[in-house]
């Protein structure tokens, strides 16, 4: 499905990043291929750059500063990858993270020491919570200055330790190439995650002979790939015996590139399937067997089927608090659980599991499909039919129904129209809040890696840098950032980056003049006392977008929504960044909703209020 990718990627590289003035990004850049000769001594800075080139990195998202100037000087001299200058280090990490989410390759960010690192921490933690493979190279003060409270010094390894898969401080230039290789290996294998490589400035100046290791041997790190065959057999047996089966899948299916196999297995069995917020696109959302997203704002049918199934197959998902609510309530119903995950610590963490299978989800699903195919037993057709009748009854509640006949734009309507206008084939990034939930509920993702959002950490401000990272990876694709007027302001400075690199993303702001999700909780649980959740001095987003050289649109009426979206995604504006400010209903809430601490089947539905 990504056949076009390599081609379009090359095309971008050849464009050589023309800026608005038509000038090359680095007008005086020279390329000295001599520095890529083997057997010559290289500085640490050259080694960093050559390692990135060896890894096939296309884009480095970064921001220069004192401690990384040697590295930037080497970046200036090469043409193997593009550097994308962001306006804040947090956005550099988010963009690298989105690049990784959309392509499946390791994203790379480069920041300076001290504040460069602390600004990057939110991005790193965001990637960590969603298990995204990124490598962040950070500058550090020279080794003799470490611990001396030097200018722009921070204990990078210490400050990032709780939010990385692993981190390194490279104190000797001889260890640099090995460390970079390990960083990419660790980030991208097993349960993926961010890896930080902290490089002191003197190390970037020291010289050594460079050779990039071809393989990595680590006695302490060998992720399990193949699932235990006995457990796989038990799982198949259990699946075929099910009367009320349910398949529940998460981000692991996306990260493990297992959605095709998941789809095959689900169709083969004829069982219902639900995805978590992180797992959307893992199973085609327009398929009849798909029950929608589950969890706090999941559909009625998905949550009810999850609660009442007798055999649950969980794939690359972790039963977190936003998915099953109260684990004690979830455990009230008897069901047998099969759990496939590459990370053993995700299994039996919040919910006891009957058949744990540690392994790569793609491999294990492949093994299961093979055994189901060979098995003489077939699913119990009568029981499965009865189960589907029950599910259709739940589905007939039409829990995502909303009233859009008024004079005010309903946010859900904007997302539905966006889905139609983009033919369901856009990359959608979102920020965090109500708009994120509406995007997840109303944009039907049929393909994996199309839905890019911060599920675990819930980081407001990711949307625009995420869209940048995706658009750079897929220059010809439609990329939209669904956001709110509060979230977008957390990284609005990146409109400037979009201008510099002509990144034609479309920002869809569902502007309700409130921090919507905060307002919703305050309405429900705090007696409608809207403490500090109202934005009283919003900018004129149209003028703001125009001041950055983009196109701004303000849409007030429901009847203008479709035409505006069509215009934004028209060929005429294909090369332009468009900022769309939709003035939406201030009082709209996200339904269904499972209150914190409640059980999955204790949803509040829109019609009940």
């Amino acid at each position: 499905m990504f056949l076009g990718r390599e081609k379009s990627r090359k095309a971008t590289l050849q464009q050589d990043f023309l800026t608005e003035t038509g000038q090359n990004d680095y007008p005086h850049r020279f390329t000295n291929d001599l520095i890529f000769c083997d057997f010559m001594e290289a500085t640490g800075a050259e080694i960093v750059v050559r390692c990135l080139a060896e890894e096939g990195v296309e884009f480095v998202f970064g921001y220069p500063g004192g401690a990384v100037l040697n590295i930037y000087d080497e970046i200036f001299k090469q043409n193997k990858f593009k550097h994308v200058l962001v306006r804040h280090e947090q956005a550099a990490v988010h963009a690298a993270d989105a690049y990784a989410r959309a392509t499946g390759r390791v994203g790379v960010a480069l920041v300076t020491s001290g504040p460069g690192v602390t600004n990057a921490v939110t991005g790193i933690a965001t990637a960590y919570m969603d298990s995204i493979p990124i490598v962040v190279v950070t500058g550090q003060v020279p080794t003799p200055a470490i611990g001396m409270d030097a200018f722009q010094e921070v204990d990078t390894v210490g400050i990032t330790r709780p939010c990385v898969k692993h981190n390194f401080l490279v104190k000797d230039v001889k260890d640099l190439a090995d460390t970079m290789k390990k960083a990419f290996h660790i980030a991208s294998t097993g349960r993926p995650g961010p890896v930080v490589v902290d490089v002191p400035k003197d190390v970037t100046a020291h010289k050594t002979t460079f050779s990039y290791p071809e393989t990595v041997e680590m006695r302490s790190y060998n992720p399990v790939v193949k699932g235990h065959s006995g457990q796989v057999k038990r799982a198949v047996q259990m699946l075929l015996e099910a009367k009320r089966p349910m398949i529940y899948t998460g981000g692991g299916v996306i990260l493990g590139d297992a959605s095709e196999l998941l789809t095959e297995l689900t169709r083969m069995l004829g069982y219902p399937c639900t995805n978590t917020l992180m797992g959307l696109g893992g199973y085609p959302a327009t398929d009849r067997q798909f029950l929608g997203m589950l969890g706090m704002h999941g559909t009625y049918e998905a949550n009810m089927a999850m609660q009442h199934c007798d055999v649950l197959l969980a794939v690359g998902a972790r039963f977190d608090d936003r998915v099953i609510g109260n684990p004690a309530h979830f455990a009230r119903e008897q069901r047998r659980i099969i759990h496939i995950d590459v990370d053993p610590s995700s299994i039996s963490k919040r919910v006891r599991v009957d058949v744990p299978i540690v392994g790569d989800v793609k491999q294990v699903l492949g093994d299961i499909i093979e055994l189901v195919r060979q098995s003489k037993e077939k699913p119990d057709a009568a029981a499965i039919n009865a189960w589907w009748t029950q599910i259709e009854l739940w589905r007939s509640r039409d829990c995502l129904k909303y009233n859009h006949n008024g004079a005010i734009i309903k946010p859900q309507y904007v997302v539905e129209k966006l889905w139609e206008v983009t033919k369901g084939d856009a990359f959608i990034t979102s920020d965090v809040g109500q708009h994120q939930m509406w995007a997840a509920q109303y944009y039907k993702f049929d393909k994996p890696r199309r839905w890019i959002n911060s599920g675990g950490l819930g980081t407001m401000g990711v949307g625009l840098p995420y869209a940048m990272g995706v658009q750079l990876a897929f220059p010809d694709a439609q990329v939209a950032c669904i956001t709110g007027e509060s979230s977008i302001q957390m990284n609005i400075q990146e409109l400037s980056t979009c201008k510099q690199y002509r990144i034609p993303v479309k920002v869809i702001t569902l502007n309700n003049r409130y921090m919507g999700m905060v307002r919703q909780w305050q309405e429900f649980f705090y007696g409608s006392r809207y403490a500090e959740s109202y934005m009283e001095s919003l900018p004129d987003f149209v003028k703001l977008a125009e001041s950055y050289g983009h196109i701004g649109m303000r849409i007030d009426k429901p009847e203008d929504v479709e035409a505006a979206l069509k215009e934004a995604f028209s060929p005429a504006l294909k090369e332009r960044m468009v900022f769309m400010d939709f003035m939406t209903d201030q009082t709209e809430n996200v339904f269904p909703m499972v209150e914190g601490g409640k059980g999955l089947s204790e949803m509040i539905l829109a019609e009940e209020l």
Partner: protein
Amino acid sequence: MRHIISLLMENEAGALSRVAGLFSARGYNIESLTVAPTEDATLSRMTIVTTGSEDIIEQITKQLNKLVDVIKVMDLTDGRHIERELMLVKVKAVGSGREEMKRTAEIFRGRIIDVTDATYTIEMTGTGSKLDAFLEAIDPAYIIETVRTGASGIGRGERSLKV
């Protein structure tokens, strides 16, 4: 329940802080933690005494295994094992109490390793509960200072933790 978890990890800067950080970040208890390099200087052996329900202990061992620097983890309390802790205790040793203190130390197989006319310093090894028992057996007013290493542990018989 009390568990003794042994692990082997790469003897690298910051390795200890990864383990300590894991316990504090996830709210696990640490009763004691000891660490030193093994006969292979690239390896550190750590013994952690912790308490928690079976679910918590399972999570602790899984989370420890997940640390990239950790090579092997074993819950010693899963099988037969030996546990020892070293304690140094400085006590007042004057008058009639001087002889009494020496006798009590001998009963607990302690050794007096430093002497002044007013004090003894006693070295004692054993399980944590034996050391507790000694401290309970002597008059608390006599105790000047105690220092304990925390438990180290090893499996009995053929059971071993090796790379």
